[in-house]
């Protein structure tokens, strides 16, 4: 009798759970948007979450029907992209550089389906590729770090050593050189974007090595960097992708914000207006898709003169007087441009 009651209760729970999770399908005429995250997944409080915010904004402002498939590992990319393609979503977003090969294959197999990829270029006619000039924002981060460093020693911590991260690294190092060519910049890579503990240990190692500001461009692993800086005084971390300044107020100098959400929203909006975007969009400082935060917690520590100098450098990048390098060779060849 007891067993039977337990089984009935259990069955009831499943039914309830089923009701709670039941989604209505898209209405006729509703804009349908699908998204496949990379292995960082939702909750990275960084890159994928930023893309998801764009999707939520499309839901709220464009009335779109949205669906997200998360990828646990790289072999999930292609099945996830194909699954959404079979459902004929009007736009399917592939979030991340790591998916470019898989998206290429899926896009060729479904030539009438629209796709968008963030952070990589896939040259198929039905794919719009969105890349960012991370070097612009990283350059500003490097300049600010060099101005703020008391030890004239700062550091860069990347996720994986891939061409995408080279843009962050090169921009950051060049930005520091713009302010003070003698600034030492240590460079380390976590080896993954999701190992939070490794992010913490490596950040501590960089601080122990003498750096007093660490620019952590490592996805979810950046959360470890933020944890590491909490117990230190006078040291800073620079966050990445989303505005992370509030996660350790006063200890995160700024965040290099990459407005993936705006790009996702713009692509959705163009679809709804009947002229889907195609080709390769490059978004940088000039398009206000890349930039630093508003220094809400660190404004007083930075001070007005440094902020003014940073604003002049920002203007110089927008005007094209400074072109931040996006590769290591480009960074080695970079010569500081005097900004009045």
């Amino acid at each position, binding site marked *: 009798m007891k067993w039977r009651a337990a089984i009935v209760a259990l069955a009831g729970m499943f039914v309830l759970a089923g009701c709670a999770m039941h989604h209505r399908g898209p209405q006729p005429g509703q804009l349908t948007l699908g998204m496949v995250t990379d292995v960082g*997944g939702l909750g*990275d409080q960084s890159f994928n979450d930023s893309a998801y915010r764009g999707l939520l904004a499309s839901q709220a402002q464009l009335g779109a029907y949205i669906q997200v498939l998360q990828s646990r590992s790289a072999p999930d990319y292609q099945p996830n992209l194909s699954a959404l393609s079979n459902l004929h979503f009007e736009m399917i977003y592939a979030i991340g550089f790591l998916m470019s090969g898989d998206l290429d294959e899926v896009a060729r197999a479904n030539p009438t389906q629209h796709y968008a990829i963030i952070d990589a270029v896939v040259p198929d006619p039905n794919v719009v590729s969105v890349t960012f000039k991370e070097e612009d924002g990283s350059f500003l981060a490097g300049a600010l770090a060099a101005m703020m460093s008391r030890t004239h020693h700062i550091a860069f911590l990347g996720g994986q050593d891939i061409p995408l991260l080279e843009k962050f690294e090169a921009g950051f190092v060049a930005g520091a050189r713009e302010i003070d060519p003698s600034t030492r910049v240590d460079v*380390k890579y976590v*080896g*993954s974007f999701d190992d939070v503990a*490794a992010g913490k240990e490596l950040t501590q*190692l960089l601080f122990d*090595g003498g750096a007093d500001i660490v620019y952590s461009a490592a996805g979810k692993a950046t959360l470890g960097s933020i*944890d590491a800086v909490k117990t230190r005084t006078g040291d800073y971390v620079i966050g990445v992708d989303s505005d992370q300044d509030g996660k350790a107020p006063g200890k995160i100098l700024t965040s290099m914000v990459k407005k993936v959400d705006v790009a996702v929203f713009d692509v959705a909006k163009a679809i709804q207006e009947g002229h889907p975007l195609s080709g390769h969009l490059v978004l940088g400082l000039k398009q206000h898709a890349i930039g630093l935060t508003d220094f809400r917690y660190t404004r007083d520590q930075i001070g007005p003169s440094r902020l003014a100098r940073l604003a002049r450098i920002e203007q110089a990048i927008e005007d094209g007087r400074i072109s931040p390098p996006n590769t290591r060779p480009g960074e080695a060849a970079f010569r500081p441009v005097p900004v009045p």
Partner: protein
Amino acid sequence: MTGLILTLLWLTLVKSTPIIYAALGGVISERSGVINIGLEGMMAAGAFGAVVASNYVGHGIAGAMIGLLAGIASGALIGYVLAFAATKFKVDQIVAGMGINLICSGGAAYGLVLIFNQPGASRQVNSLGNNGESALIGFAFLLAIVLHWVLYRTPWGLRVRATGENPLAVKSAGLDPLRFRLVAVILSGALAGLGGAFLSIGELNLYSDGMTAGRGFIALAAVIFGRWTPLGAMGAAMVFGLFEALQYALEGRFAWLPADALSALPYIAALVALAGITGKVRAPASDGVPY
């Protein structure tokens, strides 16, 4: 240079600690005759349970302490599930352990959405802080010594070992071998849970999906490498911890050494240890055999 060596030493201690706890759990379980493949899952349960409790209790270090206890309890609870399956239902212990790993990692990932309303990682909670972290590191080594003494110098330890070698002999002495297995596996879960809690609220202040990263399996390797003794397992765990620490200390120093190869170091060390250096080892005679 001395700075580098000191950091390397400290990192070795930090990285060894969760493996030591889980490996001690593995030793006591296998000594009683139950192979605990589920260490990985029990670590995840401990890590997640600790963060959830710390999140709800809050209030600084006290909240974190309760989180730590909750982590131990979560591990023990999962240990009880394995013990129950292994002693009452006499299921294949490997299969039950794998099931536990899948349930725990999946359950924690689902729990993140239910409780923190976001997948991937929990929000930041109260952690034990640097002092708590150091205390837990010291306690790991102390516990290894104590457990070694208990297993080899007390009647209870003798009986647990006898259960792992020959449960029938224990039975003929008028004792219930299943009781020893039950207690040993629950203890095993509690220790793995403690190791998991160290990862989430000792070393960090959050639960991140997949944060145990195979440490439960490395701990299993440490059990074998350490020849099923607590002190041996502790030493083996320190070797693996050293390789993990080396990975961080070496990163960025040599351009020809890619980060990916470095992050494989601890796992390669585990493989090499199991395949070659261990030499002739003998598991408890009834290890993995249901009684």
